[in-house]
């Protein structure tokens, strides 16, 4: 079986459709298979598939509001996905998106509530965005530092850092000394106070009721910058060199530790920015589970894209719309949104399993 695999890969490559590279075909087929299985599961529950699809569609794109909300979700996922591919250019696997979002959101909330609200010239929301980005960058950079200094596997460290970040957010909204909103006579849920209006991201189309905000422009800039850096810059080349062969890069005179830390810092920073945008753009106050699931969604987006910034945009839109749809499907058609998790898991597994078809270079 092991012997046959290279042959299998050649056969598969010979059989691929012209003009459709396997790198594109595999994620598309994997997504279609997963969605098909998702529909089968919905059918198996006895729920009306048509009703479920209708609720799904309605949640995704049924109104200007829903379309805007879906794209807003996609913005944060795209940023986490960009972070993932940035790190993976240096052969680093950042699976800590969840923690980086959490730190970004938490510190952005803190900045918005304490001081940034009165700043002029849009600084009221720019400062919290920057603070959130830095918080995520520190969280990601920590994993990079541990990798460079101690050889700690970044997969394990970013995972553990996520498990550390989530209780920190919980703590911040539980404790009155931190971000929990003061007890009022209405309620005292463990959440922060709403951020000042000046710190909320400006809407792109304030007239038609769409919640779409300028995060879209920020994400678009990030996509272009990451694309330029990875594909057309010396830095991208160096990250790639460090990822492919650390020892050789070091012998060639590169400070490999610096690039490892830099890659993880930028990666985490993009996740932190995504978290900050979630709070400043749509949620407006911090809850302990505001980041729930976005980290893994962003990770899947990064995986699906196979390292391409354009792929990240497509994947993020797909998952942004999927998530909106699944939430509405749960509310109106009573189909558990966990079905979407099942689909995502299947997508990741199928894509990882078919890497043997797409990687021409055979690993040892």
């Amino acid at each position, binding site marked *: 079986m092991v012997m046959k695999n290279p042959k299998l890969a050649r056969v598969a490559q010979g059989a691929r459709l012209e003009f459709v590279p396997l790198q594109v075909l595999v994620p598309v087929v994997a997504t279609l298979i997963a969605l098909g299985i998702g529909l089968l599961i919905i059918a198996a529950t006895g729920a009306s598939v048509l009703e479920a699809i209708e609720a799904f569609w309605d949640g995704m794109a049924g109104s200007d509001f829903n379309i805007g909300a879906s794209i807003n979700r996609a913005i944060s996922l795209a940023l986490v996905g960009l972070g993932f591919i940035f790190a993976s250019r240096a052969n680093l696997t950042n699976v800590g998106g969840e923690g980086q979002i959490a730190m970004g959101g938490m510190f952005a909330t803190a900045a918005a509530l304490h001081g940034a609200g009165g700043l002029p010239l849009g600084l009221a929301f720019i400062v919290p965005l920057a603070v959130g980005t830095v918080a995520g960058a520190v969280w990601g950079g920590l994993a990079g530092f541990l990798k460079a200094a101690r050889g700690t596997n970044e997969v394990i460290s970013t995972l553990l850092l996520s498990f550390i970040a989530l209780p920190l957010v919980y703590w911040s909204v539980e404790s009155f000394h931190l971000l929990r909103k003061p007890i009022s006579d209405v309620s005292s849920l463990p959440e922060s106070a709403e951020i000042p209006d000046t710190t909320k991201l400006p809407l792109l189309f304030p007239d038609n009721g769409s919640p779409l905000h300028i995060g879209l422009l920020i994400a678009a800039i990030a996509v272009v910058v990451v694309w330029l850096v990875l594909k057309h810059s010396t830095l991208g080349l160096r990250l790639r060199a460090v990822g492919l062969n650390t020892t050789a890069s070091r012998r060639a005179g590169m400070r490999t530790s610096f690039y490892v830390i830099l890659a993880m810092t930028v990666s985490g920073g993009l996740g932190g920015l995504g978290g900050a945008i979630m709070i400043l753009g749509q949620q407006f106050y911090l809850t302990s589970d505001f980041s729930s699931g976005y980290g893994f969604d962003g990770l899947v987006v990064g*995986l699906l894209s196979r390292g391409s910034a354009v792929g990240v945009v497509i994947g993020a839109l797909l998952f942004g719309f999927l998530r909106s749809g699944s939430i509405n499907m749960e509310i109106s058609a009573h189909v558990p949104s966990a079905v979407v998790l099942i689909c995502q*898991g299947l997508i*990741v597994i199928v894509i*990882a399993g078919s890497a043997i078809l797409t990687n021409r270079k055979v690993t*040892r």
Partner: protein
Amino acid sequence: MIDEQMAVFIGSGLRLAVPIIFAATGEMLSERAGVLNLSLDGMMLMSAFTAALASWATGSPLIGVAAGVLVATAVAGAQAVLSVTLRANQLVVGIGFNILALGSTTFLYREIFGPLSRDPIPGFAQLNLPWLAHIPVIGSALANQTGLAYVSILMVVVTWLILKYTSFGLAVRAVGEDPRAADKAGISVARTRYLGVLYAGILAGLGGAFMSVADSNTFTENMTKGAGYLAITAVIFGGWNPWYTLAACLLFGFATALQFLVPALQLDVPVALLLLLPYLLALVAIAGFVGKSRQPSALTIPFERGG
């Protein structure tokens, strides 16, 4: 008063350590063979759910455990096909399985039990071994455990014996350190790694089943809460040695149990900080104490014959 709380603390620390001991012990053997199963958490979660379901349906916790182990082993089989035969990225595959496990158990739980089920699930009784109970302070904590808890320690011994004294154990170590040489010596790398991953699956299954059928007599969504990741960390912290790994698991178990002890002693420490303590400890442990040199040389590196 303090004595009583210490006994409760030790008892719950041990109980919380048991699933991690099971999972980490199996994972250690698999990693010695060169395969890292990040899907450990998913295996445990699948097993916890299946065990709860089977125990609830049949009334027999024993059948529950068997069903849980079966499902976890099936997941391990799929992980083995992907990481050994298809040479996929072991870490990415593992994360995929964890997402799949979370989605499918949450979905099935809501479909079968309903979102707010409080149905008790038939579980194992505690053994209350009298000869253990006489030991001061820790006696009652040691004695008031279910049979499965003692099995976890037994599995550590068994795994140690397998690694040290059997030809299979030798094969495991060989394919984890130098698969090419092992292959030339006539050892089947693929077969050894398959068995290693399946072994990890069986033990992760026992760990997951322990959570639902022996420890809490209920299933909750995402009930493993990252225990599988802690188990993997324990293996790293334990330097791929069964006894040090056991010690790391106990440390994590007690660190988790602190969140019950500290409020009971009326100490003013935020619960959230206690929640993150095991993970912080784990991070410090693998960053501070573990050099890269001790890990099996071929860990996470797929093997291909020829070339």
